[in-house]
């Protein structure tokens, strides 16, 4: 058989409801749930994973269907491969501009103006790793104590040193490609013998052209000098395995072509549509970890991990005396096109909510479980993105390589963080797409407005696209309690589950970073001789006025903070193992636990935290 049959099997709702012996019940088949399921199964525990999506993409044929959806979609946004499913809806474009106080409930997330976030996550088997870009930088040491160092945000109850080993486990699980030498900047250090599982992917030609223009130059910020250069990003996609990994044992990437490998991905071919979906599964997604979890057998060779898909958790039931979770109510629908469903109750010893920062908080609030601290749903964070785009003076081969191979990252840290947000800058190999809808928008203009065809049209497209440079500033957002997720019985989905309501204001600290970012982009463009085409439209849904200038702020899909971890039950929702302070057998895992997000994409860090939680769960079960 071409795919492991085991992974195509799915549990039956009646058996699941009748089963009283699950050690762990996990909500959400994303990377958090996948890691905890795999670690628990390897320790011999029985695990049930509940997934809101259909789970069809757990087979190769299902994955290929998603690719076909993407190829045939007119708009190639990051949700385009995923079929509409009102029972497990997810945020989607288009969004509309709102006035202050105005509310829009026409899309899945209810939003109130004036700032509208286009942040997305994916409610499907594999979670948001089904469309992530797979950049995997670690947080910096200082990111764990921004309150102490800069007087901003919150300190983690964990230090970098305490999480470092788990970062290495996460890098192994994801199969990170990077070179240690490239990652040693701003005080990031690695043990002497450490290498990443796979070698770093090469910088794209565009990266190299940008680097040529800026290397050796610097900028000054609040009296300190920051040298500029383009550095490669560590990435969760397959490159060349490093033979020196694991003390010389090497790393074995799971290939794409045999029975088992076909599920797990080949080598990166630079297809440039990493977001939303890699055609050869070179990019990591949680399905790879789940395939390993499903393959674990118990003592009498029974499968230890079961999957129940089309199962939307709707209520967490608490025992009022002990405060422990007793059961979870789950609505199991038969068909994505219909709201017909049965409600089952699932029992277990430990419960894990790993549905992403928004859905996990939504479920807690919908279950009437606000926590002692009152912080469930609060401190919502997401990197603010500010896009800057220009035309390079020479052909730079834009559209080659993965979505983003390198960036300018030396302003991720510095004393300036006392006053303004840090940022990391991604150089986008896919041109102006994110900002303007290129290359489709270029093509339409060349055909409709300039009447080009044949060779002239081909030449025209090349001239337009292959010089496009997009600098995406990923700007730090600190936790603010009023940035939050709430629920309201007025807004429900077809199954009767309350939808998330998002209230968000881009904090001033972040806007100062954005304003400086705009200035910084102009400096870089000038050094490159690139022609600035950046324009922020006041009618844009993410338009924000700041100090008499307007900026269009994009959501970064790096969601965090809705059940932050801390040192006590009054200052946080979970402890440093992601266990709920109020419910001893409940773990709220994922980005939602992060007290700050610095300037690192959140997935690697939340994966590392889930290795930590896995150990704590196993300890609790013993």
């Amino acid at each position: 058989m071409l795919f492991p049959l085991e992974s195509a099997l799915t549990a039956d709702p009646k058996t699941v409801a009748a089963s009283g012996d699950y050690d762990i019940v996990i909500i959400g088949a994303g990377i958090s749930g996948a890691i905890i399921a795999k670690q628990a199964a390897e320790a011999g525990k029985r695990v049930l994973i509940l997934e809101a999506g259909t789970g069809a993409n757990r087979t190769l044929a299902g994955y290929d269907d998603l690719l076909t959806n993407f190829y045939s979609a007119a708009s190639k946004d990051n949700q385009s491969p995923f079929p509409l499913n009102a029972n497990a809806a997810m945020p989607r474009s288009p969004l509309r501009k709102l006035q202050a106080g105005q509310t829009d409930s026409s899309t899945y997330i209810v939003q109130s103006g004036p700032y509208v976030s286009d942040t997305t996550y994916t409610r499907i088997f594999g979670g948001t790793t089904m469309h992530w870009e797979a950049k995997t930088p670690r947080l910096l040491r200082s990111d764990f104590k921004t309150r102490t160092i800069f007087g901003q945000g919150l300190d983690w109850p964990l230090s970098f040193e305490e999480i470092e080993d788990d970062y290495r486990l996460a890098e192994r699980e994801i199969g990170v490609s990077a070179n240690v030498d490239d990652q040693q900047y701003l005080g990031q250090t690695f043990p002497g013998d450490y290498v990443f599982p796979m070698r770093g992917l090469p910088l794209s030609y565009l990266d190299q052209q940008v680097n040529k223009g800026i290397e050796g130059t610097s900028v000054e910020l609040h009296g300190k000098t920051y040298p500029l250069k383009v550095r490669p990003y560590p990435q969760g996609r397959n490159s060349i395995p490093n033979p020196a990994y694991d003390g010389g044992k090497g790393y074995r990437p799971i290939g794409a072509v045999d029975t088992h490998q076909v599920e797990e991905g080949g080598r990166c071919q630079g297809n440039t549509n990493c977001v939303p979906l890699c055609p050869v599964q070179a990019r990591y997604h949680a399905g790879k970890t789940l395939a390993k979890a499903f393959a674990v057998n118990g003592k009498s060779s029974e499968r230890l991990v079961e999957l129940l898909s089309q199962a939307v958790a709707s209520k967490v039931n608490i025992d009022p005396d002990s405060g422990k979770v007793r059961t979870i109510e789950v609505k199991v629908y038969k068909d994505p096109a219909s709201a017909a469903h049965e409600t089952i109750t699932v029992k277990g010893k430990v419960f894990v909510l790993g549905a992403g920062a928004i859905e996990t908080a939504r479920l807690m609030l919908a279950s009437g479980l606000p926590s002692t601290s009152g912080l469930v749903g609060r401190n919502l964070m997401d990197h603010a993105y500010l896009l800057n785009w220009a035309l390079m003076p020479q052909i730079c081969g834009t559209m080659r390589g993965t979505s983003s191979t390198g960036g300018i990252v030396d302003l991720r840290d510095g004393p300036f963080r006392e006053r303004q947000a840090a940022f990391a800058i991604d150089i986008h190999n896919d041109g102006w797409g994110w900002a303007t809808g290129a290359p489709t928008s270029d093509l339409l203009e060349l055909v409709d407005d300039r009447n080009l065809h044949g060779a002239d049209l081909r030449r025209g497209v090349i001239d337009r696209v292959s010089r496009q440079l997009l600098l995406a500033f990923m700007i730090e957002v600190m936790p603010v309690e009023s940035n939050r997720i709430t629920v309201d019985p007025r807004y429900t989905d077809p199954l009767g589950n309350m939808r998330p309501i998002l209230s968000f204001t881009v904090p001033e600290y972040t806007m100062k970073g954005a304003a400086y970012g705009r200035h910084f982009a102009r400096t870089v463009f000038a050094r490159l001789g690139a022609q600035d085409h950046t324009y922020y439209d006041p009618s844009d849904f993410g338009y924000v006025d700041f100090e008499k200038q307007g900026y269009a702020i994009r959501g970064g899909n790096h969601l965090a903070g809705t059940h932050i971890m801390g040192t006590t039950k009054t200052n946080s929702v979970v402890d440093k193992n992601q266990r709920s302070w109020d419910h001893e057998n409940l773990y709220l895992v994922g980005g939602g636990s992060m007290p700050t997000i610095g300037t690192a994409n959140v997935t690697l860090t939340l994966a590392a935290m889930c290795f930590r939680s896995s150990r704590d769960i196993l300890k609790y079960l013993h």
Partner: protein
Amino acid sequence: MYSYSIRTLDELKEFLYQAMRLEHATIPPYLTALYSIKPGVNQDATQVLRVIVVEEMLHLTIAANILNAIGGTPDLTRPDFAVDYPASLPDGETDFKVGIQAFGREALATFLKIERPAQRPIHLVGKGLIHRKTSPHTTALGNDPRHEDLHFYSIGEFYSTIAEGIKYLEAEAHRVGTTIFTGDRSRQITSEYYYSGGGELFAVTDLKSALEATELIIEQGEGDGGGIYDDNEHELAHYYRFDELVKGRYYQKGDQPGHPTGPQLQVDWEGAYPIKANLKVVDIDIKKDPELREAATAFNTRYGEFLQLLTRAYNGQPTLLLEAVPIMFEFRNMILELIRNPLTNHPGKNGCPTYEIPGSTKQAAVTRQAEVRA
């Protein structure tokens, strides 16, 4: 009766060259069938063919590793390396022809023959090699390089002979305190340069690794001792992957050969472009289809450059394999161009790559460029 044992190192080297030639010869038929499939249909067949093409490339590289291990020189630019299709392959007591054709029942029947597990029946054990039935003008594969008119019973038997030869020659070398594994270690291609190839590529440095290498090739093709899986019970042998398509059903663990019991799969037997089988460049009318003819020639030239690049990679420059990857994408585009266009003088038939590789061994621009970059 002619004894087919290998008795000298030179003979072994020539056998291994023939092994590389044999492994390579399966790639054009599989690749063409793969790209002949129309978009949007035959998802399962596409996956099966893709997997097998990649594994044949792995086998080619493994054969090169063995040849390098004993101090040989892989040469994919020898004028006889690329075969003239249709070529004949051993099929037990007879032989059969493998050619370039579209995906379909006929192609699958041929592919099953290529990968057929074939152990000699009792009455033929110890009876020596088999005389060719096909015309001497047909390219023969799986034959004895010392006797063009004699072929092995099966590809498995051909490789077993190589394995026996390795064992014999290494034992002989040991008797005089030496080894046949004198090749330069840096010429070995490892999984650093090649993975997700349905098996681990490992360095061949001694008797153990050399025998593991030959076993891997045999088992991936035919299965382990008649079972449907290869040795690690993990991968279905090529023969049974093709059999799944014929039977319209997946195999699953515990199944007996010929009786898959897994989920059903769909094959659209009409879902391929009607390409003209075993087309030659001269068959394309230069006046009526000048562009198609030019495309066929361009493909052959590029393919020749690719073989030159591989030769250099297998001769101490493994990093050049990274340059081969984008060329494989070029092939896809060039092949699709040929396959999707009609041939004027063959009504109802489309073009296809001819794999008539120019015999020229002069270094092409592409390899020079690749070398500079590497």
